[in-house]
């Protein structure tokens, strides 16, 4: 890519070489050569260019080129300084960005830990405030369901009347018998609502994901029981049923 640019410089110098001997005079040399008497057409061309660039008269031209030489040095310096500053700034910025990316990584890590903690805590809260858990704890505290409530009704004339019979809430009947007619193969994860034998320890914050591994997914979704609705009614049987509905 850079090759053509590098080639360009020698080409130009080669092109100018036949125009005459190399003059050691630096920048103004070409214009001096013009004064020394060039072909008139070339001289005219230089004059035109001088006119275009706003310089009148060759004398002025020569003096100006000298002062341009002196005024160009600070400019070059400025550019160099700018370049240097830009270079340093780029280096510094990219270093800072890299450093920041590690900071960011750390911050993300902290944020993730916080999220996990909040997740774990809100999960505990959710578990503790579910109805089954509340009911279990109430039972542990010896509370019993209230049963039918009696109500006092204040009538518009200020009299109070009792609706229903206030009764003492009694302990519920002992846990109902386990299912007598379970599904044949049912081996009872749905134990009756007998309170758990040992009090469940509330999930510890550091191990919320434990201990239940989810059973591996079966190959495909299990169709819900009864998804295929099998009409349970026989089409009107030949021997007509004889419903003697009891109610």
């Amino acid at each position, binding site marked *: 890519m850079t090759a053509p640019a590098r080639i360009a410089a020698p080409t130009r110098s080669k092109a100018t070489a036949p125009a005459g001997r190399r003059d050691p005079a630096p920048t103004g040399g070409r214009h001096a050569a013009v004064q020394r008497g060039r072909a008139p057409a070339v001289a005219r061309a230089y004059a035109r260019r001088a006119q275009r660039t706003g310089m009148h008269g060759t004398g002025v031209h020569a003096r100006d080129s000298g002062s341009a030489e002196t005024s160009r040095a600070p400019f070059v310096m400025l550019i160099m300084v700018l370049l240097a500053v830009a270079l340093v700034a780029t280096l510094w910025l990219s270093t800072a960005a*890299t450093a*920041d*990316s*590690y900071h960011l990584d750390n911050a993300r890590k902290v944020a993730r830990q916080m999220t*996990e903690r909040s*997740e774990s805590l809100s*999960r505990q809260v*959710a578990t503790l*405030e*579910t*109805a*089954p*858990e509340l*009911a279990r704890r109430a039972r542990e505290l010896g509370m019993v369901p209230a*049963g039918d*409530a*009696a*109500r006092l009704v204040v009538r518009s004339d200020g009299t109070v009347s009792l609706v*229903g019979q206030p009764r003492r809430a009694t302990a519920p009947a002992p846990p*109902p*018998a386990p299912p*007598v007619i379970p*599904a044949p*193969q*049912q081996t009872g*994860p*749905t134990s*009756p*609502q007998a309170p758990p034998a040992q009090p469940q320890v509330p999930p510890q914050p*550091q*191990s919320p*994901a*434990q*201990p*239940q*591994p*989810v*059973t591996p997914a079966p190959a495909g*979704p*299990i*169709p*819900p*029981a*009864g*998804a295929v*609705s099998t*009409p*349970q*009614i026989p089409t*009107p*049987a030949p*021997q*007509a*049923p*004889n*419903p*003697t*509905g*009891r*109610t």
Partner: protein
Amino acid sequence: MGTATIRRPTGPARRVRSRSSATARHTRLGLGRVVLVAALVAAGVKLAVVQGLQSATLSAQASKQRTSVQLLPAQRGTITDRNGTPLAFSVAAEALYAQPNRIIAEQRAIRADPDARKQAMARRVAQVLGPAVSEQQILDQLRSDHQTVLLAPLVTPAQARAIQHDFPEISAEHREIRQYPGGELASNVLGVANWRADERKVRGLVGLENYDDALLAGRDGRRVVDTAEGSDAVIPGSERAERPPVPGSGLELTLDSDLQFTVAQMLRDYARKYRAKGASAVVLDARTAEVYAMANEVTFDPNNLEGATPEMLGNPAVSSPFEPGSVNKVVTAAAGIESGVVTPDTVLRVPGELRVADRTVRDAWSHGILNLTFTGVLARSSNIGTLLTAQRVGEDRFVDLLTRMGLGRRTNVGLPGESAGRVPPRDEWSGSTFANLPIGQGLSMTVLQMAGMYQAIANDGVRIPPRVVSAEIAPDGTRTLPPRPAGIRVVSPQTARTVRDMLRAVVQNEPGQRGTAPEAALDGYQIAGKSGTAQQVNPGCGCYSNSNYWITFAGILPADSPRFVVGIMLDDPAVGSAAPLFHQIASYLAGRYQIPLSPAPSPPAVLTLP
């Protein structure tokens, strides 16, 4: 240059010397030129090869060294009840893997004992994960010669980090755990979702989790980044091809988890007390038909699927139709009142038995000729009185009303596996069909459909299809209400009110004028309801059994200003009535929702005339 030498005045000897040096210089120049050109050509050829021929391979290799694709998992939506209590939600987790062969190779490379490393590894894993895992089991896995072994399927990210900090050769993979804090609470409605290894995602297995899976799951995102070698630090500005994850939407159900729990508990206790084979109950809002509770006796814990049978995973309240028995008499009653062939006070002469086509129908109790008011026919659940009324109504009007009550069609409540029940089409009717349908035999419905019929009566004759999802919560928190199903005018408001008033007599307990279900009455509230007993089909003979029954009850609380409709079905219990269970549920409903007392008790109705 040549010109410069010529200009110099030089002697012959010098000329010779300079000429030979010039030749040498020429040679060197030519040689240099050739070397340079050759180098340039070589460079050019190499450039062409690298940039042209091998460019794809090389750039792929280069990007492989630094590019990594990161999966941005989408969080599955949360399911809450109507009060925002979470019923199902997801948490992030990790699965821990190890490669036994790699451990051996690495340890041998540093001249260490691989087995000691494995023992230390197993000890540390067991220490972090607690008693849920066995150290020996992990060690056995590590000593196996499998390519990759799964050490722990689900651990918290914190635990995974703790283990990986000590043993970087253990790799972790993103997982997601679906949590059901309520355990069995509403599990038949919610269903369950679990991790699918092939999709690397949690997917619904049954229930709502499966039915609304597309909505809940969201869409995983991914991004391609350059990472610094050997770490996860992302090189800034290298993120590209980013597709952000779209979290799943949440669902807000119409269920009330407290009510759901209580109804489920009451139902289970009652069903077990009377050894029912199964039981289902539904509580609907009388005005909006939102499902406040839907309970089944057989249920499962979605947090632990081990031992759960397909029967337990189902939702019989919407998937298992049954014959409703006398509960269905409300259709005849509404049709009779609507068409004007009877009024509540119409007196019917009810004989002890009635012949219809080839068969004889009797009442549940034997009697001679009775003078029953039409209210009495319902309250005492007289089959013969109902059939006499149905004959006056006519088949057409009766079938029309059955259809408008939503029988024989799915309610589209928004739950999977819903059954439509069965109503025999007219062309299949035999002579005795019209002697069966009015008293609730020969057709089937789900508990939800049964409650839906009474919801129409409770809601002044307009039946609203029930539903279980009240809103979809988008990831940004906006609530989308699913379109409200249009109500279906079943009977006129006047008819609905009249039928409701008649049904109050079912629970009345006046001397000599006793309804069939006084146990369902609740002090302070007017209760309208209907009990039912239906004979089950004996699969042996294809005929109706005389020992197995479906016991049903449907009721409205309170009858004067309906708030809730309760439907109950017990499969072959050792008890003849579900009214006490209705009483329990109604009593809890009245307290929980602070339902105002009815202004007056139900006025006593005359059922039997002398």
